[in-house]
């Protein structure tokens, strides 16, 4: 049908579904964490600490030349951990820095960052000049964001989320909180699946969601229903926990195994950070 309203609907529907699929894939799948690669083989505690050190270093360095080795390191680690470079670059370079670019863009121009003009042009009567310090600042900023994002993505993609949660617990976060987070995460997955199912169910019942009003009603009813289902489910989950001896303070497995390789890795990480920070300080 050539009804523009339909087209719009189709578009929104497809975007929602693909956004959901992306969310599930990006945050909930543990595909890369299960591969056998370098970062996957490290003890999650050591990995987390070393990545925190890199992150702090990347954020505090004030020179693009010094940050770039860290970024290169990320790419090498991604390769060693069997993450396809294209996929990795897509996740980091494309998605998140896109937002930061909006913040950086204004600082390029002389109004915000005055200095030696590099290149000027006219947009609808306004004289815009890109300045040298402006560009340098932008490069530094983008590189810093790209590196930080790469580090976070690397850590989260190569570590099973259950292990990340365990590390949280080791760093002094209360067990109950950790368990709550892990259950929220579970509900998130369930929720995403439910929304997908509801979408399909509504479609199969109303054909194409042609009758907008009706479609909306069904969706609204389903959202309420989903809410009820989740609250009832959490009660039942609580019963399941009780049934297996839960008394208020859950006890969970805590075993991690650190090997000499982990210590070696941590040492190298510390040396790299210290060197970069020293260079940055003496510059």
């Amino acid at each position, binding site marked *: 049908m050539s009804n523009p309203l339909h087209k719009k609907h189709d578009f929104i529907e497809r975007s929602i579904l693909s956004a959901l699929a992306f969310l599930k894939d990006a945050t909930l799948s*543990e595909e890369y964490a*299960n591969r056998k690669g370098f970062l996957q083989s490290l003890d999650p505690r050591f990995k987390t600490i070393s990545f925190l050190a890199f992150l702090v270093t990347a954020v505090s360095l004030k020179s693009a030349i010094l940050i770039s080795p860290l970024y290169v390191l990320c790419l090498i680690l991604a390769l060693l951990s069997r993450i396809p470079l294209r996929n990795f670059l897509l996740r980091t370079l494309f998605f998140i820095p896109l937002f930061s670019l909006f913040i950086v863009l204004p600082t390029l121009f002389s109004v915000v960052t005055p200095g030696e003009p590099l290149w000027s042009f006219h947009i609808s009567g306004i004289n815009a000049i890109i300045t040298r310090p402006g560009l340098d600042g932008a490069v530094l900023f983008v590189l810093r964001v790209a590196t930080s994002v790469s580090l976070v993505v690397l850590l989260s993609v190569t570590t*099973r*989320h*259950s292990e990340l*949660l365990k590390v949280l617990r080791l760093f002094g976060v209360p067990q109950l909180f950790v368990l709550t987070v*892990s*259950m929220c*995460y*579970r509900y998130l*997955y*369930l929720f995403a699946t439910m929304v997908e199912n509801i979408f399909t169910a509504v479609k199969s019942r109303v054909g194409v969601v042609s009758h907008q009003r009706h479609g909306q009603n069904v969706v609204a009813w389903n959202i309420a229903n989903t809410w009820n289902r989740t609250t009832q*489910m959490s009660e*039942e*989950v609580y*019963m*399941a*926990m*009780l*049934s*297996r*001896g*839960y*008394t208020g303070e*859950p*006890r*969970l*497995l*805590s*075993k991690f195994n650190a090997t000499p390789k982990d210590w070696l890795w941590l040492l190298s990480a510390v040396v790299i950070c210290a060197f970069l920070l020293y260079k940055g300080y003496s510059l």
Partner: protein
Amino acid sequence: MSDIIFEVKDVHYSYLGKFPALCGVDMTIRSGEKIAVIGANGTGKSTLLQLLDGLIFPDRGTVTAFGERLLEHSEVYEKAAHRFRQRVGLVFQNADIQLFCPSVREDIAFGPLQFGVAEGEVNRRILEVADVLDIQHLLERVPHQLSIGEKRRVAIASVLAIDPDVYLFDEPTAGLDPLTVRHIIDFIVNANQRGKTIITATHDLHIIGEIADTVYVFGRNKSIVRGGSSESILNDRSLLESNNLIHIHRHHHDGREHVHQHLPLEPHD
């Protein structure tokens, strides 16, 4: 008598005070018995198992376990609760609810850890139950991303790791392929031979002969219509028929349509 495990007397239960789920149930379960509770959907089977597991409490009537009455807020119960939970394990109808840990390994470990079992022993048990239920390859997976049959095995493993004296199974074979059903039946029979008491809720008549010596039939009035040995119940066609427990087949034979019912023990024709 000391070998009585559960004594259920005139139990009534309703959800939110208005949806009756059990109306006057009596039963006595002894140590080492194999019991099946059968009935159509909504006849209160799951409710009964949750009462037996001390998760909900009757509005009227009493449930006594190991000689002590199960009560929600009694000090005796609070103290005995931990011990009770170690002795009775429930495999929920909905495995999604039963599995709440971030990985299969941790889900299996959850029960034993709550009972203060040392980590070394817990790790040993994880490997042992994973071997029994053939889920070694799933240990690092996220439970809610498994298939229904895999989830069911993990749910059973998580209870097996506690090593209770009494197993309560709620629809252990619903929605599973024949081979997995076979494994689960074998598991139940095996556990019973090791002296475990087994109580299974199901509406699958085909498995009853193997998993139960005594069968209770729940009716639409949400109470026990009949209890007896599994043969006597399975041979009572009119009882099963009037309780929605018999398949009715309709198919064509030489161009003539024909309808017949069948009992689990009869072959299809």
